[in-house]
């Protein structure tokens, strides 16, 4: 039956995808919020009930072991085997149940998650080696590289991607990060981050768009998809814009390949360049936040640099301010802008779409709400303690376990990046698209350096 957009056809059709309030349990952003906040509240309540040992046991990891011999490492695992079993079941239930609700097949998730958990344990163990820092064996880098090797040499089955949920893990980690992020820092440094993000988002997007369309003669939707992908948050932004401009499947493929390729290069290059330039951790974090495309990739680079210079907190904090609070908020805005351009300029009302300002909310990365909520709640809770009490009671019993749980989610994420990156699946990209995006990347990196180091360097250097 072919109908010309008739209402009756729709009425007769099977029920379409219906969302709305269901997004609260069908979108991983919301699940990241619920999980992150639930873990934080659990840690606080356990502390108040005097049973923080439960949280500390669940947060166990061998990353801080500083082992010198395999015997020492084996002894640690033998001694804590039961705790690791409980911890595995804890993560499996949390992520397994929630992804199953979102529609992921549990029979695929469980075996793949077992693989992921064991892999994460190995990454922690490598990072916990006493000499790891001498060989730059930072957990994010090791996880990424080993994941890449496994995915591209051993050809894991595609169904295992069910448990390699890069974004879900990083979003949960970001909400947990909020619990260790003073709200005062958000309020003082947030405006600087938003100003810097606005400049970088506008310049990068316009550079890619105009170089692509005016110099290389690329199709406008392709240039728009690449422009926003480079300026805001990589593949997610490209996907959002693709719908706004009715981009072709090939356009998104092209953007995915370029974003993934450059993001991987940045993870490997930016920490070492920052180190060569001897940048303070806060400044490097802001530069990475300005220059990386995806949250997951950026966290990998920022964490790596933070570990290199022994100030992980500062690098992660300034990266979060710059990328999560600053740049990510631009997705919805660009979606509306390009939808308006596509409808009123390119297609002159023939697209069947109407630009809608509410898209800014619909496409808003909701996990950011969880980040703010966690930050406010924890700041309110800790405000009742003086500094000695905070350092002796709250930090080891509440903050430290939450940091460890966050580190677990980050390691799951970094390993998943490598395990899902199968180069054979990526699209072959034309030279014009490659150079367009690469010029945008260059502009982004150089402008990001100027803003992070020269213009706002004092602000970022003050973050500890």
């Amino acid at each position: 039956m072919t109908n010309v957009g008739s209402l009756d056809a729709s009425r007769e059709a099977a029920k379409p995808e219906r969302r709305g309030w269901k997004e609260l349990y069908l979108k991983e952003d919301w699940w990241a919020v619920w999980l992150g906040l639930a873990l934080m509240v659990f840690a606080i309540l356990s502390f108040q009930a005097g049973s923080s040992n439960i949280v500390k046991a669940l947060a166990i990891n061998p990353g801080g072991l500083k082992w010198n011999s395999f015997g020492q490492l084996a002894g640690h695992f033998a001694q804590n085997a039961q705790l690791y079993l409980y911890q595995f079941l804890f993560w499996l239930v949390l992520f397994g149940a929630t992804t199953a609700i979102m529609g992921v097949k549990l029979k695929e998730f469980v075996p793949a998650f077992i693989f992921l958990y064991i892999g994460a344990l190995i990454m922690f163990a490598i990072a916990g080696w006493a000499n790891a820092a001498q060989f730059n064996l930072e957990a994010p880098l090791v996880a990424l590289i080993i994941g890449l090797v496994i995915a591209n040499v051993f050809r894991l089955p595609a169904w295992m991607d069910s448990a390699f949920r890069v974004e879900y893990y990083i979003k949960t980690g970001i909400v947990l990060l909020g619990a260790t992020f003073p709200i005062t820092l958000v309020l003082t440094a947030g405006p600087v981050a938003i100003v810097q993000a606005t400049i970088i988002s506008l310049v990068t997007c316009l550079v890619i768009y105009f170089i692509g369309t005016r110099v290389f003669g690329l199709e406008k939707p392709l240039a728009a998809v690449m422009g926003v992908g480079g300026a805001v948050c990589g593949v997610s932004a490209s996907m959002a814009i693709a719908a706004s401009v009715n981009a072709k499947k090939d356009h998104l493929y092209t953007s995915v390949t370029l974003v993934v390729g450059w993001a991987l290069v940045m993870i490997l290059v930016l920490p070492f360049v920052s180190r060569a330039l001897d940048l303070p951790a806060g400044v490097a974090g802001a530069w990475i936040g300005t220059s990386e495309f995806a949250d997951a990739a950026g966290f990998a680079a920022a964490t790596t640099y933070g570990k290199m210079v022994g100030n992980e907190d500062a690098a992660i904090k300034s990266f979060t301010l710059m990328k999560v609070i600053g740049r990510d908020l631009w997705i919805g805005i660009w979606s509306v802008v390009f939808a308006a351009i596509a409808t009123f300029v390119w297609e002159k009302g023939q697209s069947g779409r109407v630009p809608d300002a509410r898209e800014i909310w619909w496409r808003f990365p909701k996990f950011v709400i969880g980040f703010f909520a966690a930050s406010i709640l924890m700041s309110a809770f800790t405000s009742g303690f003086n500094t000695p009490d905070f350092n002796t009671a709250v930090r080891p019993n509440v903050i430290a376990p939450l940091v460890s749980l966050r580190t677990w989610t980050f390691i799951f994420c970094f390993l998943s990046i490598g395990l899902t990156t199968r180069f054979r699946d990526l699209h072959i990209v034309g030279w014009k698209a490659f150079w367009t995006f690469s010029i945008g990347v260059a502009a982004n990196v150089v402008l990001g350096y100027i803003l992070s180091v020269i213009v706002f360097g004092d602000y970022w250097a003050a973050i500890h």
Partner: protein
Amino acid sequence: MILKSGYRFSEKIMVKQQAKAKWRFNPIPFRFNAAQNGVARCAACRFFTGAPAALERAIPGVNILSSTYGSVRADTGLCERHGVFTTARSAACPQFEANRR
């Protein structure tokens, strides 16, 4: 398809009910409904792929640094008929075919 005449008993009841009904909270936002203002939407078309898992299969690599389960995607989906991305709420094109699944 059953044509609706103005004389069907059930229809008369419904017309009265609608007249009596007051505004009520609708938990399903209009943007994801199949039909709005009498216009068919892509969501109801059989060529439209909007389910997250199906989208990840359709676009290899999209899950490396992103996710189709995230809020940012909103209701973006793939029109297999034209090979373009669109939203579930977009007005359907002349090639619309109702989804019978």
